[in-house]
């Protein structure tokens, strides 16, 4: 399995997710600069957490228009797995690869803590290593994680089974307690929690590691 991590100016979880991927797959991912116009052939593209372009304007808005994102859109359309974590999730919604938006947290403050999540479906490469309805703990760290979508969009997301993770104690005001969503084909996942921060015992939990294990199992 080959993976690429896109590095935007202001990304700051790029190394962390690269470390987690390498620990699980045994292969370091390619680190691809946002201004590159070429993307190596890979099976997984990761948009990491951080503050791309300082979160100025709107979180993820400028990164969504980076040159490399044209390639990411093409690969996503071709069925290549795309994983957006935290700021990566924001970039995915800003680029239209996922529906909805991520607004300022309801309490208007940055929140860093481990949260309990329910895995909504094991029917994806990202979640196949979890049990359906399994309860997991994964850290969040964001100021803009309040998922919002118009009522009809929200209904469509729910009806299509696109919700990947739900908060058990909603920390940020997200609609329907949504912590992460898929695209319609379950090949693109965006989520606010950081699986790479729960991927080895020293992190205090390994519930996030299963996501990378699932991807590896799906891709071989």
């Amino acid at each position, binding site marked *: 399995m080959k993976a690429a991590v896109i590095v935007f*100016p*202001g990304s*700051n979880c790029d190394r962390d997710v690269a*470390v987690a991927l390498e620990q699980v797959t045994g292969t370091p991912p390619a680190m691809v600069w946002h201004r590159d116009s070429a993307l190596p052939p890979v099976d997984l593209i990761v948009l990491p957490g951080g503050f791309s372009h*300082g*979160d100025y304007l709107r979180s993820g808005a400028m990164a969504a228009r980076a040159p490399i994102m044209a390639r990411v859109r093409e690969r996503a359309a071709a069925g290549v797995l795309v994983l957006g974590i935290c700021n990566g999730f924001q970039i995915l919604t800003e680029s239209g690869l996922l529906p909805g938006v991520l607004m300022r947290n309801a309490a208007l403050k*940055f929140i860093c803590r481990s949260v309990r999540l329910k895995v909504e479906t094991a029917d994806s490469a990202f979640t196949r290593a979890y049990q359906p309805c399994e309860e997991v703990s994964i850290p969040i760290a964001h100021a803009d994680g309040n998922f919002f979508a118009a009522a009809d969009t929200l209904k469509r997301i729910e009806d299509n089974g696109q919700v990947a993770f739900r908060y058990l104690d909603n920390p940020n005001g997200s609609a329907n307690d949504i912590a992460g969503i898929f695209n319609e084909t379950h090949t693109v996942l965006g989520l606010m929690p950081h699986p790479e921060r729960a*991927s080895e015992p*020293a*992190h205090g939990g390994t519930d996030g590691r299963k996501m990378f294990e699932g991807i590896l199992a799906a891709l071989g």
Partner: protein
Amino acid sequence: MTVAIEPAVTPELAAGYGLKLDEFQRMLEIVGRTPTFTELGIISVMWSEHCSYKSSRFWLKTLPTTGPQVICGPGENAGVIDIGDGQACIFKMESHNHPSFIEPYQGAATGVGGILRDVFTMGARPIANLNALRFGAPDHPKTRHLVSGVTAGIGGYGNCVGVPTVGGETNFHRAYNGNILVNAMTVGLAPADRIFYSAAAGVGNKVVYVGSKTGRDGIHGATMASAEFSEDSEEKRPTVQVGDPFTEKLLIEACLELMATDAVVAIQDMGAAGLTSSSVEMASKGGLGIELDLDAVPVRETHMTPYEIMLSESQERMLFVLKPGREHVARAIFEKWELDFAIIGTLTDSGRLVLNKEGRTWCDLVIAPLVSNAPLYERPWIPTPPQAPVGSDEVPMPSRPCEVLLRLMSCPDLASKRWIWEQYDSQVGGDTIYLSGAADAGMVRVHGTNKALAMTTDCTPRYCLADPVEGGRQAVAEAWRNLTAVGATPLAITDNLNFGNPEKPLIMGQLVGCIQGMAEACRALDFPVVSGNVSLYNETNGEAILPTPTIGGVGLLKDASKRVGLGFVADGDLVVLIGETKGHLGQSLYLREIHGREDGPPPPVDLAVERRNGDFVRGLIEAGLVNACHDLADGGLVVGLVEMALAGARGVELVLPVGVDPIGFLFGEDQARYLVTASDIAPVMERALAAGVPAVLLGTTGGIAISMNRGNACTLAHIRAIHEGWLPALMAGEA
């Protein structure tokens, strides 16, 4: 076009820039003529308390700064210590008190930005931030605004640059009503053979400016110059700088990328006094001259004068000296990161600072005598008078022990600060092992190894007020204890000395006393000072802050798997108190919170006993004999027990030893004490006996309550609710 008509320099004008008459005379003697306005600005900041340490330098020299672990002590941007395997740890703490009071968000944010730059300037990747905060009384009208803004500012900056905030402390006291303290610390990692220093070298080498553009923010004394511009009289920007953490993040990556090449001769960040202090520092340390073309400095506003450019404290800027012919390497890196890059000058052999702009020379100063003959004061001081001891018979428990405990656990100094630290990203980097709250010290793994660095900030200002010498000892000892309690070997400290007006003998005596106590403790504990910062004149309307010499300590665990936290880990573990309890109540939180008294001497610190007990406890942890460890500090023994119970989410059954005075035993703040838990205490007790260290069995873990002598139960859920509830209620305006 003439950009500026400079005012004539007179003693009166100089006084407005903080130069006393004798300092003005000294300046004339060194310069040999009346300096220009730009030169006055430069000399006045070089000789300011902030840059010259003129009131504290005499005493700072008495602190021990050496040891086999020290690679670089005070004098550079940050201290450097050896952590083995060819790796170095670089760290420093610095205050941003005054700006944070005026504009809490930007003041605190730029405080974090400044200390980060001090550390990555030396070649280190920052791996952790800590902060020590002191606010005024909780019910003071400004306190909520300040807590909210400072917290958001620290988080806003640290979270964005991607450096985890892993520890710190927050106190409240009315003495800080008019002067809050924001002390920020950064810890970084570098290869020991790739440390970068600020001394310029190589006549003819280019001086390069990188980072953000220079604006009119933070110019010292800008109001004084308001009438002197020949162009439109612009409104002066506020003196608080504005931080841009995104640019800082780019600057970190670009600087580290450049430092991995062979292009760099020297580097200095532009902090206080901006381009002035950075260029003077580099030239002075290298024994060289420097000539700058101010037309080449990237500016973000038009018609900036030489004075403004030299005195601007715009953030996120660096000065490099590059090897000849390597400029293109550096330029490519900074262009990739979309940062400004400009060659603004050249090193010379003249020993002079020469500033040119628009064909004119605005400054031509000889550097060395301005640095070596900077004012140095040995200010008069008087010691703080001793206070009468407090006996437990004077301060009986007014109610049931459980109620006393609840009041202590919800008092401003002991209540949970979760509301603050959950706004900080504590995990970015993927190497955070402990946050403060889970252990006595924050802990971050050395990436890719089994080693970990432990770090803490400590000071008990009420002790320092009552007895500066004892308080200075205690601040260092507590930092050493906190590192010890997680299993780390304490290596070195950074200090941030926050005091009132040193021109008052009593305040100067506090500074002298605290430094004396610190120096004794540093020597006794092999815990040298490698970097630091002094913040004086923290006074409003003649009311000084409590003397607050904040200590930032760093320690090393060679094998992070040996670490212990402070939470109880299993039911049925036995709890052992290490160290002697005399029941010292002077300056205790029990006295203050339950009896409203802030008197008595602080607990004495016996440094030989500290060393013995700490080395003993570290030995227990290294041998794997204990499951949890917590040092005893604010609030004494019962507070320590409750903190362990809350962190481990399990109770404890406490049995008071026969014959002890319950008040002194439960609430006394005697030093050199630790609580440890063990599943088998026989080896612990045997070792204690052999080492001559007092060790007493106190009780057994388990259950859902804290109980004493099979009665007086207080449920953990109740304690937790009130302990966690205080700060959120205060911030919601409900307290």
